[in-house]
């Protein structure tokens, strides 16, 4: 195939765009069925309690209300992404306030909600564990006593001899970093409908589901059905970012149990408050770094100890923290690395997959650390990264040699620095006179002469962060994807893939790939709805793997059909075996004879000759390997590289940070879907900026304070300045034309770049996200005292 593209890399309108701008796209809550019932959740207002008895006797005079609880679950009573530790309905105890003990099912949702206070639950409160640092203490309460420990997982990594490395270092630096709990904040709250199909067909689920095949597995386990009797159809998904996975699997299972019990369609629809209360979040991390380096800037040894608060359930913690252990020492070649990452249970809201997936936390730590080392050595931030950064042939902390692709770390760094005039700005900001608020902590009321007047109160800062990121699942598990492509006899085309659209535009990307191979316009391709009853399974839409894995499967399917058409052409038009046939602009060309026929006519011909024009494409990832004992191995089969530079204005009187500009330079391999790729950068950077400067879920004894968008603030249109995406398209052997990952890299760097920019502005470093007003002014977080709302110093 020639490197001239006719559809790939061009601006293509998204295939579901018209449905979405006209309001016709059906999201889960837009589905209604005759006889449909609603279900509402029964919860105990406790973070940790033993359930003695649930008394539903007040509902005896409500024949139209069904009660659904653990006794109605005929299959697995506990489920989970990796460990089965989460009850579908809690019957013995609750371990976090979001837990559900039963559901009321009936025709009127508001009536059901009005009945909730009538249910009397007798329970015994248990000690509440909220501090992950106390989780492994011998005398701490066990969240899941059957596991014997609050440890969810421990990933060790050992490379070289870290103690020897420290001995050989000129200087040693030790720092502790903390990151916060945050919410995905997809704008669509969870909704799902389960529809009983009758005994022989089983059940159908339609919902706001990130991964229909995972939901199918959960529902089948809970109902004790074979997989083929559970059909999951994905509704248009109103945002997910990793968040509508386990939560939606469990909601699907609950709706299914109720639908089977009542033999009616049952809908569950969450309010925003319920969504925030029950759904999992991003892990807060405590990261302890000890680093040894020489005066020439070379890092000799790094010792890392990371503790992740997994909250009440294991969820994806083992995999989230596994990515952390692979990437914790950053994109730097370091001879001696010792990393331990642990995730533990607490009674806090549980944590799982969220865009970034265990990378934004260590990147904040390691990129802050690199800047601090540079500043101690009197060199610039880009220089320390040039000295230590990965290049072709570098060996990672897991002992993997980086090869077979362009290791473009230094290239993205160079492009980013060049685009922003980084060095000049960084030096001039560093040398500006620092004004900072002087206050007496015992009497923090400013006197007239302590105010800083404009414009001196606004300080400019610039900062950068770099990363490498393993593509797709890596050694987490089997990694394969498939696609179905069917060309009709008039040349129109059906396409489907088992990877689910999450709003990011993968259906458009897949349409572009098929259109490029077959030389037709992308509008010719009709994308079919994902239905687990029809679509071949492809694993989950996670780990920025959709373009790389699903895209390869689509390309494979299109090439199978193209090759069948080429054989037909050669035969029908008597072309030599060595002639090269190409497809473009809806036409078919021979190198020797020029234009041969129209694509539509060729399809008609193929149909008349009985050629099979449907194909299943398949792609399985290359081999990876991992040693659990020492954290060594080829963790991922390829990597992407990125550099973001943040330019900020810091108001040193108020602590407010405004992000003037973020320049995001990424090597995602080949860019397939230009509009979609730019959209990933704008959206990812904006989410990353929210993580960096203001988002935080705080929990008081396990109870979340910010249950809606009035208190949990995400960036609005007015909060972030310019964002500039720049793509460096490195060579890559895998993926469609070398396309790999972008969605998560765009988010993972932003908070770290902002933190370095703020330090450049104010001349102090910060060790705790988010960089909100009090962090900037006081270098600490203000927490409400005791159980009351409000702040104290």
């Amino acid at each position, binding site marked *: 195939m020639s490197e001239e593209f006719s559809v790939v890399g061009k601006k293509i309108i*998204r295939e579901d765009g018209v449905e*979405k*701008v006209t309001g016709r796209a059906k999201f889960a809550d837009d589905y209604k069925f005759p006889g449909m019932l609603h279900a509402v959740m029964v919860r105990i207002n406790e973070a940790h309690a033993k359930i003695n008895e649930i008394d539903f006797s007040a509902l005896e005079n409500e024949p139209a209300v069904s009660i659904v609880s653990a006794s109605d679950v005929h299959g697995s009573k506990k489920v989970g992404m990796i460990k089965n530790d989460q009850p579908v309905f809690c019957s013995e105890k609750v371990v976090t306030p979001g837990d559900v003990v039963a559901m009321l099912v009936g025709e009127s949702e508001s009536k059901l909600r009005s009945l909730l206070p009538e249910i009397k639950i007798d329970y015994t409160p248990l000690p509440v564990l909220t501090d992950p640092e106390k989780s492994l203490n011998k005398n701490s309460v066990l969240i899941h006593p059957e596991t014997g420990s609050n440890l969810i997982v421990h990933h060790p990594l050992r490379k070289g001899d870290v103690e020897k490395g420290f001995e050989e270092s000129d200087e040693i630096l030790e720092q502790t970093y903390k990151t916060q709990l945050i919410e995905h904040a997809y704008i669509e709250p969870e909704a799902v409908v389960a529809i009983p199909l009758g005994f022989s067909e089983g059940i159908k689920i339609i919902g706001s589901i990130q991964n229909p095949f995972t939901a199918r597995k959960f529902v089948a386990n809970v109902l004790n059905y074979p997989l083929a009797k559970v059909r999951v159809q994905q509704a248009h998904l109103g945002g997910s*970012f990793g968040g509508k996975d386990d939560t939606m699997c469990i909601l699907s299972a609950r709706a299914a149990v109720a639908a089977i019990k009542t033999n009616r369609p049952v809908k569950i629809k969450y309010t925003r408050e319920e969504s925030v209360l029950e759904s999992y979040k991003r892990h807060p991390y405590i990261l302890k770094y000890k680093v040894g380096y020489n005066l020439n800037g070379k890092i000799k040894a790094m010792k890392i100890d990371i503790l992740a608060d997994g909250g009440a359930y294991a969820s994806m913690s083992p995999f989230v923290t596994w990515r952390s252990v692979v990437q914790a020492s950053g994109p730097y070649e370091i001879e001696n690395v010792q990393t331990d990452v642990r995730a533990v249970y607490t009674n806090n809201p549980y944590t799982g997959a969220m865009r970034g997936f265990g990378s934004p936390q260590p990147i904040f730590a390691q990129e802050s650390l690199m800047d601090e080392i540079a500043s101690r050595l009197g060199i610039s931030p880009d220089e320390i990264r040039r000295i230590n950064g990965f290049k072709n042939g570098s060996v990672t902390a897991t002992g993997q040699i980086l090869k077979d692709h362009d290791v473009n770390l230094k290239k993205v760094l160079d492009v980013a620095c060049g685009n922003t005039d980084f060095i000049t700005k960084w030096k001039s900001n560093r040398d500006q006179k620092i004004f900072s608020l002087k206050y007496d902590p015992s009497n923090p009321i400013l006197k007239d002469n302590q105010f800083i007047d404009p414009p001196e109160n606004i300080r400019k800062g610039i900062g950068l962060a770099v990363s490498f990121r393993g593509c797709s699942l890596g050694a987490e598990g089997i990694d394969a994807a498939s696609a179905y492509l069917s060309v009709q006899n008039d040349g129109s085309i059906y396409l489907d893939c088992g990877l689910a659209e999450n709003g990011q535009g993968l259906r458009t990307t897949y349409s572009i790939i098929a259109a490029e191979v077959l030389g037709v316009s992308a509008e010719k391709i009709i994308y079919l709805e994902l239905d687990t009853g029809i679509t071949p399974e492809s694993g989950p839409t996670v780990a920025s793997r959709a373009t790389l894995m699903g895209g390869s499967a689509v390309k494979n399917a299109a090439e199978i059909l193209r090759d069948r058409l080429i054989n037909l052409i050669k035969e029908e038009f008597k072309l030599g075996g060595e002639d090269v046939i190409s497809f473009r602009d809806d036409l078919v060309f021979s190198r020797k004879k020029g234009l041969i026929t129209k694509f539509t006519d060729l399809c008609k011909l193929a149909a008349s000759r009985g050629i099979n024009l449907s194909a299943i494409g398949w792609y399985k990832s290359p081999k990876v390997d991992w040693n659990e004992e020492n954290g060594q191995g080829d963790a991922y089969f390829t990597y992407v590289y990125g550099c973001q530079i943040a330019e900020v204005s810091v108001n040193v009187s108020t602590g407010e940070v405004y992000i003037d500009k973020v320049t995001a330079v990424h090597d995602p391999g080949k860019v397939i879907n230009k509009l979609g790729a730019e959209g990933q950068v704008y959206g990812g950077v904006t989410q990353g900026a929210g993580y960096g400067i203001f988002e935080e879920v705080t929990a008081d004894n396990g109870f979340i304070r910010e249950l809606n968008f009035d208190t949990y603030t995400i960036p609005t249109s007015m909060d972030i300045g310019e964002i500039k995406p720049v793509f460096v398209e490195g060579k890559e052997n895998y993926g469609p034309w070398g396309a790999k990952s972008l969605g998560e890299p765009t988010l993972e760097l932003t908070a770290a770049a902002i933190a370095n920019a703020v330090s450049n502005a104010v001349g102090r470093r910060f060790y705790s996200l988010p960089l909100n007003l009090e962090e900037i002014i006081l270098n600490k977080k203000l927490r409400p005292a005791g159980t009351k709302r409000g702040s104290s110093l």
Partner: protein
Amino acid sequence: MKMKVEFKLNGANVSVFAEPNRRLIDLLREEFELTGTKEGCGVGECGACTVLMNGRAVNSCLVLAVQAAGNEITTIEGIANGDLINPLQKNFLEFGAVQCGFCTPGMVLSASALLDKNPDPTEDEIKEAVAGNLCRCTGYKQIIEAVKETARLSRKN
């Protein structure tokens, strides 16, 4: 007790009975099956339920159904005046301003309300007009560009 509510909905006169505590969003979604109006928060923070009331963008989760009486309500289904899409919607597509699409109807209506009042908005005015519409996917940049371009084209014509 239900109350009779007569109002203009997407250009047509309608008459329904509604409980005094019923929200406009529920009336639109349930009685009229206009499900393009979305509920994201229920407290007027996210703007997914934005509709136009006499040309002004309002959160339909904070408006009672009975308050629609005598007024003109436009939802996303009525914004293109019978065409498939209008120039603003077209530019949302051209500029990649749509990802998951859940905030899109509200976003389009808030931007429409701005352009009706102010055909030549500055970038800051555009940002302010959609500041009440939260979007978690796009980072707003392509939305702002789409609105800007719509204003530019309408001035040219």
